[in-house]
């Protein structure tokens, strides 16, 4: 069986209970030992006392026997008495017995004659006495007789003349008075009781104070041979007792003397000792409880403090424990303090790493977000007319170029320098580096209305001059988008997005400027996002189709080709202008997929056209630069079976913006398989002439802005003439776009344009209208 172990919530309780328990156990052992010793001592002293009393009683018993026997003998030997007995002189005998009674103080004195008649007594006692002399063993003259529940001590003395002629018998009732007399002989208050054996063989007292009791029986029977001390439980209470069996006439004991001593009386002298022990024990326990509590408190107080400090540390607070003493707990406290300090140091380092940019030492994006959250929350608490938050998103213009040309170490140095610069310019704001060349500044609190603008302008002014970094003077600039809370949003995500939109706008507006967020920017952004989703949908579900605008060959006087134009029929919005969706497609990269579709679709249609009719396709710079563009072209040709020479790829100058080498390689590749390449929108870009030298385009398309005014404006006409001459010199064809009336046609034809395209001839048409259009001829008269 396992006792449930008590659970302690405190060490203090455990120690107190442990010590108190151990002390109580020791006390209990001591108490039990003391009790046993007391018991043993009481028992032994009572035993000695009883033994002494027993011995005294024995001696007294023997002495009494002797005295009585002597008294009886005196009578039995008296010559006159013997004469009287011999002659049967009863009156004389009785008078002699009366004298004996008076002289010896014995109540009953009798003479038993040889024939069994008893002189001097009558009744039951006489009957018991009658045969007594014969029953007594040889040489015995002393016996204890039980008659009708009364116990007598009998002394028998023979009357000899010289043969026995009778017996003098003295009978002494062993009654209460006799017992009291015995008791008075003892130094201690003993109780003497006579026991006799009843008809059933059980021992009981003559006075009825002790009934039949197995313990008493056992005691008497054990006392036949040796005297022993036992503890009896009697009606009067527990008592130490000894028994003295008393021999009857035939030697068997029919009566016994029980001497007892109450346990209570035996233990009474030890009561003060026991009380003293108990009191001392209680005081001891109280002292141990107090002492162990005190000791436990001394031990556990530092532990408690350590515990509390550990909790504090767990919750993230720096904590110190007061070190007291040089013991183990003191050393533990010292270790704890060192650990606590170490944890705090590391935590600081980790959180600094987590929240700061390692390069510039500025707060990082995470930290910026937290600061923005806090600033907005604070502003929200301050009420409608309270604090403002301004977010300035900064993007370094041309940073990639710096890295590419001057190397990353210089780029890093530039970022550091600019970080320091921004920090210096915005002491009232939080400058963060969000990553790469992006910075952001939070201005919060009660701002002057013009502070965001002033700061943005100050930054732009500061970087208007070249900045020195790593020994280089670097011309750089920032584009800055600004969003204000609560006007531009109270949600940090929204505010940051709006600032980004403003930044986007600033970049669009030509770098080196700042722009505030406007609602329209947000709406446009949303539309773009929706557009992107719609475009993906459109590409997958086939909402696109191609329209074709004829290109009229002025030299051959017939339609020499069609420019394929992408059309999008939105299921809900209807026709969507390419001007609207192409930029989105370009921005999102969808233009690659769309372009591939256009290429295939155009080739598929063109293959049905007459052999001299080409198909022209506009390729966006993104698509053109995409991986595997040449392969896609060849695939489209192979799949449709369109001869390469009938495919004309129209590109704009912007394909050259990100480097010429790759583009030229691709162009030559296309040329090699026979595909024609046209330069579209000529005249609107940067420095077109260098490209013309770099690559032998098959055709140049003059932008409609020149064509529109070619008939009315002399300068436009001059430019057109110059381009036509230039193309002729380079052996390139010329196509004029946007020809709307006969004057323009006439003018262009006059200047030697190879082909024209425009509403004058036809708007872009659906595929099924092409067959009808092919035979059309322009009137030469115009």
């Amino acid at each position, binding site marked *: 069986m396992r006792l449930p172990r008590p659970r302690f919530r405190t060490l203090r309780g455990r120690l107190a209970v442990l010590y108190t328990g151990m002390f109580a156990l020791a006390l209990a052992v001591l108490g039990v030992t003391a009790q046993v010793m007391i018991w043993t001592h009481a028992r032994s002293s009572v035993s000695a006392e009883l033994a002494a009393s027993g011995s005294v009683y024995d001696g007294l018993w023997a002495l009494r026997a002797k005295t009585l026997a002597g008294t009886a003998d005196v009578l039995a030997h008296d*010559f006159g008495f013997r004469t009287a007995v011999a002659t049967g002189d009863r009156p004389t005998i009785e008078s002699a017995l009366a004298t004996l009674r008076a002289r010896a103080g014995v109540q009953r004195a009798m003479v038993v004659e040889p024939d069994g008649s008893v002189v001097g007594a009558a009744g039951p006692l006489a009957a018991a006495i009658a045969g007594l002399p014969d029953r007594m063993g040889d040489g015995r003259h002393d016996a204890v007789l039980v008659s009708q529940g009364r116990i007598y001590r009998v002394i028998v003395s023979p009357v000899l003349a010289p043969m026995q002629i009778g017996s003098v018998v003295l009978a002494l009732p062993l009654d209460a008075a006799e017992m009291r007399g015995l008791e008075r002989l003892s130094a201690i208050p003993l109780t003497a009781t006579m026991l006799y054996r009843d008809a059933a063989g059980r021992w009981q007292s003559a006075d009825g104070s002790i009934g039949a009791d197995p313990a008493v029986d056992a005691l008497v029977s054990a006392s036949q041979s040796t005297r022993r001390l036992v503890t009896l439980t009697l009606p009067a209470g527990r008592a130490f007792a000894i028994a003295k069996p008393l021999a009857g006439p035939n030697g068997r004991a029919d009566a016994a003397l029980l001497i007892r001593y109450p346990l209570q009386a035996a233990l009474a002298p030890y009561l003060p000792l026991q009380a003293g022990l108990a009191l001392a024990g209680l005081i001891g326990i109280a002292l141990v409880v107090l002492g162990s509590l005190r000791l436990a408190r001394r031990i556990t107080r530092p532990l408690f403090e350590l515990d509390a400090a550990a909790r504090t540390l767990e919750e993230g607070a720096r904590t110190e424990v007061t070190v007291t003493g040089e013991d183990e707990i003191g050393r533990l406290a010292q270790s704890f303090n060192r650990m606590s300090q170490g944890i705090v140091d590391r935590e600081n380092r980790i959180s600094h790493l987590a929240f700061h940019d390692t390069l510039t030492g500025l707060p990082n994006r995470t930290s910026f977000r937290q600061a923005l959250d806090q600033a907005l929350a604070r502003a929200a608490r301050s009420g409608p007319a309270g604090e403002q938050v301004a977010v300035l998103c900064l993007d370094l213009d041309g940073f990639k170029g710096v890295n590419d040309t001057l190397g990353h170490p210089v780029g890093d140095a530039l970022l550091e320098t600019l970080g320091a610069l921004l920090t210096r310019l915005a002491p009232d704001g939080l400058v963060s580096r969000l990553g790469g060349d992006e910075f952001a500044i939070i201005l919060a609190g009660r701002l002057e209305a013009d502070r965001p603008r002033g700061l943005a302008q100050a930054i732009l002014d500061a970087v208007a001059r070249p900045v020195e970094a790593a020994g280089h003077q670097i011309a750089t600039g920032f584009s800055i988008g600004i969003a204000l809370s609560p006007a531009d949003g109270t949600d940090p995500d929204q505010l940051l997005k709006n600032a980004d939109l403003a930044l986007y706008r600033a970049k669009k507006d030509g770098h080196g400027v700042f722009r505030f967020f406007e609602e329209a920017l947000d709406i446009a952004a949303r539309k773009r996002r929706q557009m992107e989703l719609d475009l993906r949908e459109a590409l997958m579900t086939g909402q696109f189709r191609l329209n074709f605008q004829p290109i009229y060959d002025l030299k051959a006087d017939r339609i020499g080709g069609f420019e394929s134009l992408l059309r999008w029929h939105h299921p809900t919005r209807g026709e969507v202008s390419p001007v609207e969706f192409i930029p989105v497609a370009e921005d999102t990269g969808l233009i690659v997929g769309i372009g591939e579709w256009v290429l295939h679709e155009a080739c598929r249609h063109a293959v049905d056209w007459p052999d001299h009719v080409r198909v022209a396709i506009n390729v966006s710079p993104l698509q053109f630069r995409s991986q595997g563009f040449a392969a896609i072209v060849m695939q489209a040709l192979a799949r449709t079976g369109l001869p390469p020479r009938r495919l004309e790829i129209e590109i704009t100058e912007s394909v050259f913006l990100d480097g010429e080498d790759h583009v030229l390689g691709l162009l030559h590749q296309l040329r090699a398989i026979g595909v024609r390449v046209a330069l579209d929108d000529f005249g609107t870009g940067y420095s077109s002439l260098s490209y013309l030298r770099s690559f032998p385009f098959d055709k140049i398309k003059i932008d409609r802005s020149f064509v529109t005014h070619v008939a009315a404006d002399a300068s436009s006409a001059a430019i057109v003439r110059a381009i036509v001459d230039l193309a002729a010199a380079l052996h390139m064809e010329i196509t004029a776009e946007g020809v709307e009336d006969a004057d323009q046609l006439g003018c262009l034809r006059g200047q030697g344009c190879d082909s024209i395209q425009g509403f004058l001839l036809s708007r872009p048409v659906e595929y099924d209208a092409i067959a009808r259009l092919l035979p059309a001829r322009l009137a030469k008269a115009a």
Partner: protein
Amino acid sequence: MMRIRFLSALALALVAAIAPAAAHAATVTITVRQPDGTPLTDGVVLVDSAAAPRPVPRGPYAMEQKQIAFQPHVLIVPVGAQVAFPNRDSVRHHVYSFSKAKRFDLKLYGREDQRSIVFDTAGVVALGCNIHDTMSGFVIVTATPFYARTDAQGRVTIPGVPAGAVTLRLWSPSIRAAGNVLAQAATVPAAGYATTLTIRR
């Protein structure tokens, strides 16, 4: 021993004397045993017969007090015999008897004093000394000539007992009965009579 033999001779003489008168005389042999089966050695057997003649005292008889004891311990005398009680000791004695056969009381007497008692009634007389409790003696006063003391084998042989009805009496101090005597009737045939008596305690 001498005295026994003497007594036996006396008995034989008595028998011889009366033999002519009693034509049919027989020998009585009795063996006496104690309760434990051993022979009773200090007993006296008396045979009472109506046909028996009275024994005649032939004295002198003496019961000495010598060395604080009666000598002999048991003295058998015929009825009417006078027995002297000479004191051979240097101390005085006070010899008494409370027996019915002869009650007497010889007050203190010494060597110089002559005391004698005539026993005229048959019976056992127990003798004591009031001064010396240890002294005990017996005088058997007999009315019959047929008596004997048991020998070492507890046996008596009494010749010349007239045939016919007799009373056998046995005396011994160890017999617990009135007068320390056991009595038994018997018929003695002419051819003789033999029996064994066992004492019951």
